[in-house]
């Protein structure tokens, strides 16, 4: 077990690190093609990657018990920031999401993607599992509050992701199937009430969100173009740098949210299978770490993070292949962009911390 002990000392989980690295390299290769063979874009992304990787390793040095102690403060801090955004936020693309901190712009909803599952895990960790109805209700409030604040920005996509992250922890914590069914029913019943209180323009946004084909100049255009790119790629793909749809500039946001379409066009079905294998490898490693974690917080949080990671993949691929509404979710670790990359890497840093700080005590 020499190899593992090196990992333990550096607090790096090598299998996970290896999987992430492969994904990032795939990302850089596709960005080079999608960005019109612009080396600058690749350099910029590589720099962001390095920063994020360093961040991941630093986070991995922290003992999980230390991380757990941050949960509540971070959660409250995030809520305050979300409220600030409503009052002082910058507007980009029609929604208030950013806080301008002069030095850099910061998106508090991004923080909540980590903080909400962390808070839920922290809250449930010292309670008996499965959680009783009262605790489930508390968790629901903990999740709903930031989700409503994010939905108000309005950023429905992120709101849904944050909600998924929180509820996945609750699911792992063993919430009874009966409660799960009841909550689903309540959610379905609550939607029409929420609808009643929405402004006309908010309703319009939700309708476009649900049915992009209604909006041929906006979201619908993306889906039409990305389906053409994927379909024309075929089983073997058109080959790297040979994708016509992306290079003729039909495909919008091709190096960010829609990079999967470029990947499909150039590497085909075969490439997709390869990519999914890497993702599956990372996910299984994450879940393995979760099961083998030493405390409940570690188990809950690691599995919550891993499930959220999968949800990103699923939502992005579903959106690009035209099965899910178009929401601004990048393909994790492949899409160009810094913010989501940093969030993901910090998440993986935490997973590594949970795994590498285990102590093997002999009783």
């Amino acid at each position, binding site marked *: 077990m020499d190899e593992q002990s090196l990992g333990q000392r550096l607090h790096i989980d090598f299998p996970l690190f290896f999987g992430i690295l492969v994904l990032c390299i795939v990302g850089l290769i596709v960005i080079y093609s999608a960005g019109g063979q*612009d080396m600058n874009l690749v350099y910029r992304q590589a720099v962001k990657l390095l920063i994020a990787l360093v961040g991941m390793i630093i986070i991995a040095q922290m003992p999980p018990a230390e991380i757990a102690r941050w949960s509540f403060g971070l959660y409250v801090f995030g809520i305050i920031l979300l409220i600030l955004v409503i009052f002082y936020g910058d*507007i*980009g*693309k*029609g929604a208030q999401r950013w806080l301008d901190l002069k030095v850099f712009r910061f998106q508090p909803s991004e923080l909540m993607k980590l903080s909400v599952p962390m808070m839920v895990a922290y809250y449930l960790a010292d309670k*008996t*599992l499965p959680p009783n109805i009262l605790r489930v209700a508390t968790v629901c409030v903990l999740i709903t509050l930031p989700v409503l604040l994010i939905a108000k920005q309005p950023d429905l996509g992120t709101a849904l992701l944050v909600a998924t992250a929180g509820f*996945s922890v609750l*699911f*792992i*914590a*063993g919430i009874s199937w009966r409660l799960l069914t009841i909550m689903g029913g309540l959610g379905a019943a609550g939607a029409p009430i929420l609808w009643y209180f929405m402004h006309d*323009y908010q309703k*319009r946004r939700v309708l*476009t969100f649900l049915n992009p084909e209604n*909006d*041929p*100049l*906006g979201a619908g*255009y993306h889906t039409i*173009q990305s*389906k*053409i*790119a*994927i*379909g*024309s*790629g*075929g*089983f073997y793909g058109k080959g790297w740098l040979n994708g*016509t*749809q992306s290079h*003729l*500039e*039909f495909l*919008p*946001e091709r190096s960010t949210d829609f990079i999967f379409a470029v990947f*499909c066009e150039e590497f*085909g*079905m075969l490439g*997709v299978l390869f990519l*999914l294998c890497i*993702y*599956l490898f990372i*996910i*299984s490693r994450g*879940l393995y770490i*979760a*099961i083998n974690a030493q405390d*409940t917080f570690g*188990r*809950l949080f690691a*599995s919550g993070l891993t*499930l959220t990671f*999968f949800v990103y993949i*699923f939502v992005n*691929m*579903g959106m690009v*292949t035209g*099965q899910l509404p178009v929401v601004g979710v990048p393909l994790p670790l492949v899409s160009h962009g810094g913010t989501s990359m940093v969030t993901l890497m910090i998440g993986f840093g935490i997973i590594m911390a949970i795994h590498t700080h285990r102590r093997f005590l002999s009783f």
Partner: protein
Amino acid sequence: MAKEFNLKDQDHESGLIARRVYISAFIILMLIIMIISRVFYLTVLQHDHYTTLSQSNRVKITPIPPIRGLIYSRDGVILAENKPTFSLGVVPEQIDDIDETIGKLKEIVSIEDSDIVRFKKAVKKKRRFENIPLRLNLNKEEVALFAVNRHRFPGVDVVAGLNRYYPLGAKLVHTIGYVARIDDDDVKSLDESNYSGTTHIGKLGIEKSYESLLHGDVGHQQVEVNAQGRVIRVLDRTAPKPGENIHLTIDLSLQQIAIDALENRRGAIVAMDPRNGDVLTFVSSPGYDPNKFVNGIDSKSYNLLLASKDKPLINRVIQGTYPPGSTVKPFMGLVGLENGVRVNADESWCPGWFSLKGHEHRYRDWKKQGHGHTNLHKAIMQSCDVYFYTLAYELGIDRIFEGMSRFGFGQITGIDIGGEKKALMPSREWKRNALGQAWFPGETLILGIGQGYALTTPLQLVKATATLANKGHIIRPRLVSSTSNSISNEVNALHNHSENKIELSNSVYWDDVITSMKDVVHGVGGTAWRSGLNAKYNFAGKTGTAQVIGIAQDEEYKKEEIAEEFQDHALFIAFAPVESPRIAIAIIVENGGGGSKTAAPIARRMFDHFMKYRDLITKG
């Protein structure tokens, strides 16, 4: 002991968690199979279909903004139109180095730093594949020069568009308002899809309140493009639905007379048809040029407007609040009659001043030597202050507030443009809430002559005058009489009916007051008799002179000694003809001195024109 329990519990829980993780893993596997089958469906089963599409995929969808509706005056003169313009548009996605491109473009067309700032701001907000204007209003030489050099600038093109233009400029700015570039605040509430090709939006006046009608619905077209994204031909086109044209109630010739009469002095003139609420004249003076605002006014010009002593940006007709002065007297008289405090013939003795019992303070009449025995008719005709001091005192604040509120004082009129102010009709309750004080009887007295806390907008005043002319029928003033479809020319007339009626216990009261108002201009000794001389029709009016500053007890008002901005406001309300009113008017000339001298002659000029023009003269 506790630790042991905890350990057992841990085992149970880790088993539970592990089970849930396995279930999750199973769900993940299922979903991944779903994605794989979807990709399989697209790449293998539908491969031929999408290959065909991709080979013929040189089609882009672009929005076509609708053409904004035009605005016409009552007489069919165009007041807001769309002029063709050319701008330089840039698609950021198609350009490697934007700064370098701008630098090269500068050699051909002039690009100011402010253009670049605005452009960079827009780049951040729009999507990368959208066309963003860099320079607006290119002249013909610049368009030609760029056309020759176009091949050097992929991603840059001349975009033809339409620019809003107001041919009459300042004359109607407070009525029509203007459009300007869509800003962050607008984006929050508008339908982004419908405005995807639109650059301007109504910001003020008619342009704002009728935005949804004027704008129309966006269209889109599928265009074939070459490898650089340049349009080769249009394949399919869904035409936009142009905005509706809007026809105003404004009578341009009457508007012009009002503007000429004010000679750019500070003031407001508003005239309306008491039958249907059509606003015939809507002048807030001075105005400013709305065309400067359309593509963004430079801050220097804007600061000049803001700093101007004349406050041109204020819409005095709906936002200017003035003490109504003696123009309240006819209404106050009606409130007195209706409440049974006075009958028409009741007289007050006017020695030139009035004092409350047990108080030293003398409330003065404008006429130092007094009006002697004065009944309502004489009190309105000669504007006797003492009569109304006593009337107000007998009525008391509560009945005054209730009665004047029925005429709409202190309430918005509901005209079809925004920004209207409520002004103020004071009451005990208001004073308690706003000032935290009880109401004093002296304040009731000066309310009787329209001074003190009372404030009114010119539009409120004209609405009240129209109500009087209508003998109680209240009508909402309006600026738009109809809309028309710019394709089918189909006219859609908007109807405006009287909403409410003030029912008096005896309808003779209306005639009492109207006769008195008629004698203000036609009677011997009426305050505005000069303005009524030789008129070929009968009209009724009431002068008003509103004090801007208080005059001390032992002082006299000497015009020469007072700076212009502290001189009295001149007011006049009137309607014509008395027998079947067709026009009601309210005039305010700020610091214009006496109402009879400054404001009433303007009404006469406008009535003369209106009656002749409408062929309403039957007398002599």
